[in-house]
């Protein structure tokens, strides 16, 4: 049974009080619902950076509640002393997590932590996923100017022909400003809040120490791997030179006729903390949908999103963070992909797994079980566990459902998304969550992309796109 939101909030450890008012006690379920529903009615406040930042805290509480509920389960049968120690550590870990305001979707990246959504208003929750972010504190212009001077050696007004002092958009670790080069091109300049990288390292080291009691659990090794992969991904996100390299790699996969654009990187105006790219004129999904595009237009963009995902996937890259802010719906019909901070480059072994996984499309049970053993790190005993294999198979079948459909698949089918969430929820509830870290990001990609396509209500011939793109896998 999926946990109710009220149960999750109860699962949060109680705040210790010494008679003083607790400044940030968890919000009541009604408060969370009010905000979530309210957000669906408002346009994304791209300019209201502070509000996004503050609201991100509410998503934190929901995610933390899941974490608390999940972690508590490990200690249900432990003795009182172990439970007390775990409780203390958990409380401290959650407090640390609350302060990690840069955690855009980090708990979501771990996959298991949001494997289930509250059984209260799944539509509102899905619709608002793209609205809620954790972001770095907004930078005022004095700070931003000094950060640019620190990184590029001159003030932004000296470097660019024009530079807008107000942020155009929030980024997970900083913010984006529009500018124009002296050669005339319009660019987007992403500037990172100073010191984030070391803050992440410091926070994760603390968190690592606090979660050590979990090493007694049988899946500790795998949990540790997943935790470290989240840590590594977040740290990599702070390196804009890595992101620039990912963008260049991704851009090499697309031709003009694909109608998919990855912005050009301007290396001479980019560093580890500043990324200057070609500005893509267009709208994010909310603004795009507000123009009431025709079904044909929505379907075409849906197909482009899938084509982009498959092109990169079979080209060796997982575009692992497909959230609404990363897609630009351009007026000329092209789809822009921005934000390559979370890209997983497949190793040779992982490419082998991808190749083998193709056989499971036709339902090959033998290959499926072999992959479950390899990727899921299952023991022979676990492979004989009928319930476990049934749940893994259900989740896998859900992933492949659009691929197995002849003709178009209707991503506006709410039941499809709910089935996926239910399947993942069951895996989390049963703690069948041991997996290769690569798999976490794959599921993140699947869910993220399908949530986007659901919002578009797009119908896409996934099989046809897949057949065209997977030839590159040879």
């Amino acid at each position, binding site marked *: 049974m999926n946990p109710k939101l009220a149960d999750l909030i109860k699962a949060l450890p109680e705040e210790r009080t010494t008679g003083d008012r607790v400044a940030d006690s968890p919000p009541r379920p009604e408060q969370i619902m009010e905000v979530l529903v309210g957000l669906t009615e408002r346009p994304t406040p791209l300019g209201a950076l502070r509000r996004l930042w503050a609201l991100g805290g509410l998503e934190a509480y929901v995610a933390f509640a899941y974490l608390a509920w999940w972690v508590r389960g490990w200690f249900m049968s432990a003795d009182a002393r172990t439970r007390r120690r775990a409780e203390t550590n958990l409380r401290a870990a959650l407090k640390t997590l609350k302060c990690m305001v840069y955690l855009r979707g980090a708990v979501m990246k771990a996959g298991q932590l949001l494997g289930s959504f509250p059984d209260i208003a799944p539509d509102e929750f899905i619709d608002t996923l793209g609205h809620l972010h954790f972001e770095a504190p907004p930078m005022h212009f004095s*700070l931003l100017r000094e950060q640019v001077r620190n990184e590029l050696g001159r003030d932004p007004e000296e470097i660019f022909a024009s530079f807008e002092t107000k942020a155009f958009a929030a980024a997970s670790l900083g913010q984006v400003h529009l500018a124009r080069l002296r050669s005339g091109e319009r660019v987007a300049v992403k500037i990172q*809040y100073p010191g984030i990288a070391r803050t992440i390292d410091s926070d994760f080291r603390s968190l690592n120490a606090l979660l050590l009691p979990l090493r007694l659990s049988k899946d500790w090794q795998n949990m540790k791997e997943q935790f470290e992969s989240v840590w590594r991904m977040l740290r990599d996100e702070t390196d804009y030179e890595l992101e620039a390299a990912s963008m260049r790699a991704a851009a090499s996969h697309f031709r003009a006729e694909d109608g998919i654009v990855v912005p050009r990187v301007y290396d001479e105006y980019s560093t*580890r903390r500043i990324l200057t790219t070609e500005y893509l004129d267009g709208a994010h999904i909310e603004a795009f949908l507000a123009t009431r595009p025709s079904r044909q237009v929505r379907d075409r963009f849906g197909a482009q999103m899938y084509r982009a995902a498959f092109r990169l996937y079979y080209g060796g890259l997982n575009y692992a963070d497909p959230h609404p802010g990363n897609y630009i719906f351009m007026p000329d019909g092209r789809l822009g992909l921005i934000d390559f901070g979370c890209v997983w480059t497949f190793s040779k072994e992982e490419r082998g797994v991808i190749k083998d996984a193709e056989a499971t499309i036709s339902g090959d049970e033998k290959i499926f079980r072999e992959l479950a053993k390899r990727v899921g790190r299952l023991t022979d005993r676990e492979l004989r566990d009928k319930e476990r294999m049934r749940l893994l198979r259900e989740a896998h079948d859900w992933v492949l459902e659009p691929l197995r459909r002849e003709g178009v698949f209707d991503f506006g089918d709410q039941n499809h998304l709910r089935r996926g969430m239910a399947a993942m929820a069951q895996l989390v509830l049963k703690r069948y969550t041991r997996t290769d870290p690569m798999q976490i990001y794959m599921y993140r990609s699947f869910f993220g992309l399908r949530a986007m396509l659901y919002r578009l209500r797009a119908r896409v011939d996934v099989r046809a796109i897949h057949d065209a793109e997977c030839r590159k896998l040879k």
Partner: protein
Amino acid sequence: MRVTKDVQAATREKILRAAAELFKKKGWQRASTREIACRAKVASGTVFNYFPTKEAIAAALVNEAMQAAEDEFHFRRKAGQTLEEDLFLFIWLGLRQLAPYRNFLITALETLLSPLARSSPEHHGEAVRLLHVDTVERIISQQKTPQALSHLSLQVYWTLYLGVLAFWAADDSPKHEDTMAMVDHSVRLFVASLAGAQRKRSAGKRSVKR
């Protein structure tokens, strides 16, 4: 022979430059006033005419940097900046100006600016503190809606600033970006405390009127 003001200024400058070079090379504690005099090509007694102690030299270097920071602040400041932006800019520019002296400054600052060393108004560190805080007061008063400042608020500010200096002196992050974040957070904290005090005062006045 009477020494003209220009000559005096030039000699003072020679001593300060020589001291700065020696402090950088040997550290503040190990550099002696005799060596400073030798490097500046003046008599030891001359050094004492201008600077009675080594602390006085360090204070002069710090004040020079603070003055340069203030000049740069007025040059770089954009119209309409908030108090947070102003204070951030002033403090950060000060750190940039102090940067050449960073590796020896913290030792000097422990003597110069330590609250425990402030035994008299003539103490050189007190002059540094007063100059800096005076500028901060002026920055606050020039805001469109200036926040009311109390002696305690300024004390809070100074404590935060010393914390920033200590953090910066030990900061090994690339381009001192951790210090940049630290300055930002400290300034936000201070400005929020001023705003909180202002709100309490206004609420107090409103209840008295009733």
